[in-house]
């Protein structure tokens, strides 16, 4: 436990515990079945919406790609999004049709894609009357990532809302804004959005500090 050792205001506050990488075995702790461990009673995983949830049911998928263009196969992602009405549902309860929080992972097998089963979020209003375009907040944890990376996923078929979103507009480069916009696909009549997260280099995803 740190103790304040000077009269400076900032030092009267405790310092945040420092971050460390989640490491190569993050799945043991936070995605048990991916690591080959038995599941417990309830696990936090990627089904955020059950079939009875209100809204447009979608799957969101993507890869995580490193600076060499290779897939990152040991990442853990956390998603946080509003429901179809643009309202967050903080109380996590697996018996509810929709939860705002979900987890997913990339794995050593196959295409190494993460996926979320959810509903498309509604636009989220701010107190100043402005509106944020529908989005999913994502946090990325992995070996080699010393402090988790924070980004947002937007939807390409929300062009008008995206153009007016104060957070998307906080990204100065209009080219780089596109790194946050997921592409819509239809597969077997189901709607799917795809967004690859590029950690470094060409097409590098925008990451936020907040």
């Amino acid at each position: 436990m740190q103790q304040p050792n000077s009269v400076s205001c900032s030092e009267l506050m405790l310092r945040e515990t420092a971050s460390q990488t989640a490491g190569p075995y993050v799945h043991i702790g936070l995605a048990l079945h991916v690591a080959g461990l038995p599941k417990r009673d309830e696990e936090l995983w990627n089904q955020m919406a059950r079939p009875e949830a209100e809204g447009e049911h979608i799957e969101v998928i993507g890869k995580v790609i490193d600076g060499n263009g290779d897939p990152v196969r040991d990442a853990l992602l956390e998603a946080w999004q509003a429901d179809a009405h643009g309202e967050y549902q903080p109380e996590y309860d697996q018996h509810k049709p929709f939860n705002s929080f979900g987890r997913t992972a990339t794995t050593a097998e196959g295409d190494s894609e993460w996926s979320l089963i959810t509903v498309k979020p509604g636009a989220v209003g701010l107190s100043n009357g402005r509106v944020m375009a529908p989005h999913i907040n994502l946090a990325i944890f992995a070996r080699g990532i010393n402090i988790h990376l924070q980004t947002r996923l937007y939807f390409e078929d929300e062009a008008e809302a995206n153009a007016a979103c104060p957070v998307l507009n906080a990204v100065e480069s209009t080219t780089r804004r596109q790194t946050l916009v997921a592409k819509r696909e239809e597969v077997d009549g189901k709607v799917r959005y795809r967004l690859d997260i590029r950690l470094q280099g060409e097409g590098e995803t925008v990451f936020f500090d907040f």
Partner: protein
Amino acid sequence: MQDNNKCALNKRYVERDRDWHPPAYAPGYKTSVARSPSQALVSLWNATTSELMGPDFRKLRMGSHDNDLLLNYRDAENPGLPVGERIIMFGRVLDQFGKPVPHTLVEMWQANAGGRYRHKKDVYLAPLDPNFGGVGRCLTDEDGWYRFRTIKPGPYPWGNGINTWRPAHIHVSVMGPSISTRLITQMYFEGDPLIPLCPIVQTLNDQEAVDTMIARLDMARSRPMDSLAYRFDIVVRGELQTYFENQ
């Protein structure tokens, strides 16, 4: 707009000091080289509803031994106890103003006493322990306390350099009140000579920051003839309430 969203609006968090945390690019830890963004982070200086809220896990159903790693991997075929030094790992989750963070999710995972993880990809020479899984979770109580019972993990070699070893450590994940307070760290053990040699510890530039990750032996909380205790308090970003909206 909805009440749920509105109640969060007059709140903000103390800025995260990114010089205190390890930088994304820390070449001594080789894997960070190709996994670190080269562009600057975009600052959301006026955090929105999205960043000021987060999941509340009070209704997540936990098993009775989820925080007891001595018992939570045992079954009919492996009814024994794990090998290793029995320890109680405990502490408080506080915010930067010293306010306890109640009912927040604390998760942890670790290697066994020989330094081997129960993970498909870990092929270290040390054997798996049939009685040890290596994962735990719990919610803090109303005063911010959490507690696990486990064994002290072993150090192990890894391929960063020719002869690099991880100090004994337990990975710790804490949610805190919002996604702004989210934190994953590693807990080290007081007095371990491998701590200053570790390239992952060395990603930090400040010894005081390293000290925030070191658990202290606490003889008062140890159990005679049973377990030693290590205290590890976790500090998450401080929450500020403001009376005026920023418009």
